[in-house]
């Protein structure tokens, strides 16, 4: 069985190599090659999964060493894979959702002449993401980490003829690099502290290491997670990343890649457990992002950007849960999986709407679409119910568990976190209802475009609707399936550990409170967008609305603090360079020049004056000799 693990990665990697090197002759078959290889990887994943289910909880982890990568004395880096329950969960999510999105892309990218390349990039992404989650050491994880960053960059900028897409890709890449720095520093710290970076030895050795070092490593890992998972303060790239084709937004920027940060924190749980300060920072980042993303999501009129805000917010939930320690690890991953289903479904639904509306993304130009695209409406609607936490659907179970876990943290901290998660749930209900109402309900608001073409909303082809239906099933049933009998908890507990915490209120009370805030959120949204018609042009809005439309001034903040700050820094450095460094160098040169200018006067060309110096010198020598003799 161990030997199959490499096959997981090999299939999509082969696909990427063939599609990207194969050239235009593969144009006609490229999308099939990509999809089949993604599906093959999924099948391998399922085979491994069934095999794993047949074993006892303790010996489920598989290990495969492929080859020694950098064998230097004292520095052993292997390409080795480790497949335990946590990795398995990710493998199934990545390959499963990935395959569905490959199928969806066949229809969505049908008219794009660079479709083969697109599938090559998608396969590249799958391979990198799989390396990330099944690596058995941090260095190999870093390879996958950079690989998904590259794939994300290539796919955001896939329509590079649009300057906005090219800029967005660059922005995502640069912001991610800040986080990647964190990961590389964390790995270096690990190596100096533990002498290795394999998961097993590092995570076992945390008991004997000073808390300060663990805190430093934890904070650097968190920085990495912030970059990849679009958490405050490195969140600014995710909204712009929506410039990429919608399947990309669904796969990479909603379901899988952006959750890599959560994986990293849960995987490194032992480090964070031993460093409470780092854990506290994780929780704070999660809580802040959770509200930040939700508020941004409320104000966006671009359907994909509203969903991007929502993604940020939901990942904030996961990071928060991961920061709670053993109380929350399992629920972070559970929410991650259910979120993978319903958020991918929502994005695919958004893509389907755009497909039928001539790529219009402004929700103010939608309205009443439920009559025109019933399948999209139903699948999107189920995803919507799942994300707001409608009782019985996926999001209900997973989000409810996180809110309970937040309360169970105990003390004032628990109350604050509980309140934040509840507030987040209310805002989630509000903005998702808003998206739903503006898109599918109300009167039609679309107008002929500049060329006089009126959009003719229509249902998308089967290749697009089938993945949406499958994901809708996941959105509806996954949460219940995981929660009933605590299946997911028992599945992951051997890897992450679990602790019930001390809940100050009963689970029923928390659920009831969640329901109340859910109803409040939906009701406010209904009052604002359901009861009265939505204006086709956005009203000016309050100060907060306008700030939220500008992503709560994140770019302005970055511009003022980082760009301007950087400019001032370089300017002052240039000043120092010009005055101080150049001054010293030029001053030395000038004084040497002046001195030699004066010395030069001695060379006047008169043989007689040279003779004088010669005689003078000889006289001095003789005088000195005589003097020395006399003494």
């Amino acid at each position, binding site marked *: 069985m161990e030997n199959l693990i490499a096959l997981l990665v090999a299939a999509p990697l082969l696909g990427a190599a063939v599609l990207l090197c194969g050239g235009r002759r593969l144009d006609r078959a490229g999308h099939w090659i990509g999809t089949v290889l993604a599906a093959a990887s999924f099948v391998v994943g399922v085979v491994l999964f069934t095999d794993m289910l047949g074993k006892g909880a303790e010996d489920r982890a598989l290990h495969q060493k492929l080859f020694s990568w950098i064998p230097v004395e004292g520095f052993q880096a292997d390409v080795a894979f480790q497949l335990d329950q946590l990795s398995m969960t990710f493998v199934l999510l990545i390959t499963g959702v990935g395959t569905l999105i490959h199928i969806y892309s066949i229809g969505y990218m049908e008219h794009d002449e660079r479709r083969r390349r697109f599938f090559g990039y998608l396969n590249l992404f799958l391979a990198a993401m799989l390396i990330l989650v099944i690596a058995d050491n941090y260095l190999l994880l870093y390879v996958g980490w950079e690989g998904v960053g590259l794939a994300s960059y290539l796919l955001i900028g896939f329509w590079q003829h649009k300057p906005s897409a090219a800029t967005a890709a660059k922005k995502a890449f640069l912001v991610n690099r800040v986080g990647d720095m964190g990961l590389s520093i964390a790995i270096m710290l690990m190596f100096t502290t533990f002498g290795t970076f394999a998961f097993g030895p590092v995570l076992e050795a945390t008991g004997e290491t000073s808390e300060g070092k663990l805190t430093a490593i934890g904070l650097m890992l968190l920085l990495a997670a912030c970059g990849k998972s679009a958490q405050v303060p490195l969140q600014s790239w995710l909204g712009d990343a929506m410039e990429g084709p919608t399947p990309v937004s669904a796969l990479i920027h909603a379901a899988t890649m952006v959750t890599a940060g959560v994986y990293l924190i849960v995987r490194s749980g032992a480090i964070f457990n031993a460093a409470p300060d780092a854990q506290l920072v994780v929780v704070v980042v999660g809580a802040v992002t959770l509200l930040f993303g939700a508020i941004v999501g409320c104000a966006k009129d671009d359907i994909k950007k509203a969903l991007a805000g929502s993604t940020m917010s939901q990942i904030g939930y996961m990071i928060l849960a991961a920061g709670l320690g053993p109380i929350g690890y399992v629920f972070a991953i559970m929410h991650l999986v259910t979120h993978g289903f319903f958020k991918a479904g929502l994005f695919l639904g958004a893509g389907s709407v755009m497909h039928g509306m001539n790529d219009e993304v402004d929700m103010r130009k939608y309205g009443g679409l439920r009559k025109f695209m019933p399948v999209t409406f139903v699948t999107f609607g189920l995803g919507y119910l799942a994300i707001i936490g409608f009782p019985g659907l996926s999001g209900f179970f997973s989000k409810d568990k996180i809110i309970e876990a937040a309360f169970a943290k105990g003390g004032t901290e628990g109350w604050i976190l509980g309140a934040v998660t509840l507030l987040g749930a209310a805002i989630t209900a509000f903005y998702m209802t808003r998206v739903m109402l503006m898109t599918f309900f109300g009167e039609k608001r679309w107008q002929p475009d500049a060329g006089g073409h009126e959009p003719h909303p229509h249902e998308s082809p089967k290749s697009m609707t089938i993945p949406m239906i499958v994901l809708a099933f996941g959105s509806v049933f996954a949460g219940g399936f995981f929660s009933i009998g605590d299946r997911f908890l028992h599945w992951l507990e051997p890897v992450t550990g679990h602790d019930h915490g001390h809940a100050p209120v009963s689970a029923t009370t928390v659920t009831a409170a969640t329901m109340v805030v859910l109803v409040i959120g939906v009701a406010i949204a209904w009052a604002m967008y359901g009861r009265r018609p939505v204006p086709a042009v956005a009203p000016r809005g309050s100060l907060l609305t306008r700030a939220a439309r500008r992503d709560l001034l994140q770019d302005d903040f970055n511009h003022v603090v980082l760009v301007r700050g950087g400019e001032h820094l370089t300017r002052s450095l240039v000043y120092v360079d010009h005055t101080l460094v150049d001054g010293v160098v030029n001053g030395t040169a000038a004084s040497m020049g002046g001195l030699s200018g004066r010395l*030069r006067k001695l*060379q*006047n*060309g*008169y*043989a*007689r004056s040279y*003779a*004088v110096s010669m*005689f003078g010198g000889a006289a001095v020598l003789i005088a000195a000799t005589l003097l020395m003799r006399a003494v």
Partner: protein
Amino acid sequence: MNPVNYLYLAALLFTIGASGVLIRRNAIVVFMCIELMLNACNLTLVAFSRMHGNLDGQIIAFFTMVVAAAEVVIGLAIIVSLFRSRHSASVDDASLMKL
């Protein structure tokens, strides 16, 4: 006669030669002064040879004369060609070797 007197004479001749080199501008005169200095040296060599009672100094004096003869040939050639090109034998006029 006391040999030290020869040394005094040599010193006097050397001083005259040196002052001539430093003061006079005419290349021929400067040249003659150099010869004077050389011969002052020869005189001391011979005087010391006499004083110490061996012939080493006299042999060296012969060497000096040979070298001086060769030097005269080259020196005069230079002065003649200098005079031809500049129509002057002044050493100060030939002060081109400067910045």
